């Protein structure tokens, strides 16, 4: 069955009418992921965009058809670890899943997530990374790109400012926990995402981690009909490469032999408008360096000739 067949035949597990921004690719991602996961799923939505738009619910109404709850901002992984233990005690099996923003994952939630990863708690943790705290007006996170305007890394009239540090390479940090499955994904590559969620579901023991890069229309200054095009550029510029890793065997899942310049990606995004040539060149250099590192890992993992590549 192809990914498109899967999506065409599966029931949407998210209620209609949730209030995400027009063109939000996180909502698309969530609906896609939940279609693959199916109804036998317990879903954690920590504070963040998807909580704010009503996926957990409002008062006595639910935003999802599966059991869903708000963890705290910083304990999605440990609450899910507890749910897994409770299910084990009851002799039950279900997908135990977090769908969490980057703030709840790479910042406040990192300790709990790293702890669960090291212990091997059997959960599927999916991070939707939109580079900051978007539902509260875009404050910086440790996943925000260097140079980016945010409401807490403002830009002066002369164009100086923006975030001084580059985003941490979080999916690689997760892979270095020697997990059974780690992957990156993009809303512009839905079949790739579907396959990755299926692989996460196949994991028998331990934590599976998927890091999805979701350009944010309202926060980043992107037109709503540009959402998917810009997501694709993030991959085609090698700014956010798509790969998967079983333990330390990492392989690209989308190969980008002829990348577009990072400038072509950055120039389409409002939050980078103040960046001059030199600062864009700096982003290009960081992108090249990080990509070379992944290429080396990909070669060690068997590269394009590896089974399953």
């Amino acid at each position, binding site marked *: 069955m192809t990914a498109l067949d899967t999506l065409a035949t599966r029931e949407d597990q998210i209620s209609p009418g949730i209030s995400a921004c027009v063109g939000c690719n996180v909502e698309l991602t969530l609906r896609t992921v939940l279609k693959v996961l199916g*109804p*036998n*799923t*317990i879903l954690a939505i920590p504070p963040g965009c998807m*909580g704010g738009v*009503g996926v*957990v*619910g*409002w*008062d*006595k*109404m*639910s*935003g*999802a*058809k*599966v*059991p*869903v*709850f*708000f*963890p*705290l901002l*910083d*304990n999605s992984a*440990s*609450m*899910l*670890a*507890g*749910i*897994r*233990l*409770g*299910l*084990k*005690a*009851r002799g*039950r099996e*279900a997908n135990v899943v977090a769908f969490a923003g980057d703030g709840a994952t790479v910042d406040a939630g990192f*300790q*709990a997530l*790293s*702890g*669960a990863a*090291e*212990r091997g*708690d059997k959960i599927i943790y999916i991070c939707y990374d939109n580079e900051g705290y978007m539902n509260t007006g875009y404050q910086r996170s440790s996943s925000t790109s260097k140079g980016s305007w945010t409401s807490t890394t403002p830009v002066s009239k002369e164009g100086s400012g923006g975030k001084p540090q580059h985003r941490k390479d979080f999916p690689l940090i997760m892979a270095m926990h020697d997990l059974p499955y780690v992957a990156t994904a993009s809303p512009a590559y839905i079949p790739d995402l579907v396959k990755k969620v299926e692989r996460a579901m196949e994991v028998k023991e331990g934590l599976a981690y998927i890091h999805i890069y979701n350009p944010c229309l309202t926060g980043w200054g992107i037109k709503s009909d540009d959402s998917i095009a810009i997501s694709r550029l993030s991959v085609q510029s090698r700014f956010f490469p798509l790969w998967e890793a079983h333990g330390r065997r990492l392989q690209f899942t989308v190969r980008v032999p002829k990348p577009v310049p990072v400038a072509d990606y950055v120039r389409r995004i409002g939050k980078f408008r103040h960046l001059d040539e030199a600062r864009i060149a700096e982003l290009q250099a960081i992108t090249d360096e990080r990509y070379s590192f992944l290429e080396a890992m990909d070669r060690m993992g068997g590269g394009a000739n590896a089974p399953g590549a």
Partner: protein
Amino acid sequence: MSRVDVLNGNLAAAHAARLSRPEVIAAYPITPQTPVVEYLTQFHADGSLPCQMSEVESEHSAMSILTGASLTGVRCYTATSSQGLALMYEPYFRASTLRLPIVMNIVNREMISPQTVWGGPQDSMTLRDAGWLQIYVEDNQEILDTTIQAFKVAESAEVLLPINVCYDGFYLSHMTERVEIPSQEEVDAFLPPYRSRHIILDPETPMAVDPLTNGRLLMEYRRKHMAAQQAALVAIEKADAEYARRFGRSWGGVIDEYRTEDAEYLMVSLGSVCGALRECIDDARARGVRVGLLKIRSLRPFPRARVIEALAGKKGFGVIDRNVSFGTNTGILFQEIRAALYSAGSRYPAASFIGGLGGEDLTLEIVAGAIKSTIETVDAGKIDNEASWLVRPERKA
């Protein structure tokens, strides 16, 4: 058949947890609670504690794991101390407001700073308004009996609240005493298995747990939570009575009284210092001084009616607090007792003492001094608005 052993407080707590058949345990070691975690993992390894156990990377995750596990409807247990409790404050408050009947021993330890690892109930008493039930105990047998009862109280349908059984670090946690350990069959007969009926994360019955909630509905939750705290006053007494019937030991329920019947003066406190108070009360009684002990077992819910009743007709009282209530010049328990009496329209002369912080010893001499000072204050008709500090004289080099 029960058996008698010599146990430190931590081992008494671990046996109580084992006998209560928790289904999930998550814990992180911290002095002076650490041996509890070691005992439990050993029981688990030996097969006498067949539960799911998680050794977490922090107390924040310990309470988060139990919150998650309890949401699947199973029985949960943990233990912590001081800084660990402070670190888990966020999921701690939430466990009570989600009405999850988790049982947690708190091995009381002073709060930093200055840097300290020794005893004192400042850690848990500071959190008295976080919605948990809190019971304070005096010796190791009481740790074991109360921890078993705690599951029954927390899980009872009219309560459904998490509960702390608090005992003094080192004075109880590391001191050995004779403890009677009931058999598994006896505990099973007292404590039936738990299954959640009010909240559950289960794909067979999908439910949104804790969606965004408006203030009006939130206030309804708070009002019901407060009513459940009041229901716990009854549940604690009921559990104590049933336990006494089955095991032959009663701890008095929400309070305990010692030689109060004909007393003119009452000393009020909680925790292990009540042992020293009993000794000193016996000495004073031998000299014809009519003094008794009012031991507060349940700080939350606060046993207002029984405190009023216990003090009725007395000349006055003194409170020994092993904690401070910053900004009030006294300890927390003194504030609580005064507030309870005000609601009954009663006005007693009263003495306030703070001592025994950071593991500092409250010797028989010091406690006897506090009794003497209480009698002077009461006879003079005074009400302290500032605590007297109970300190040992400095040793000459």
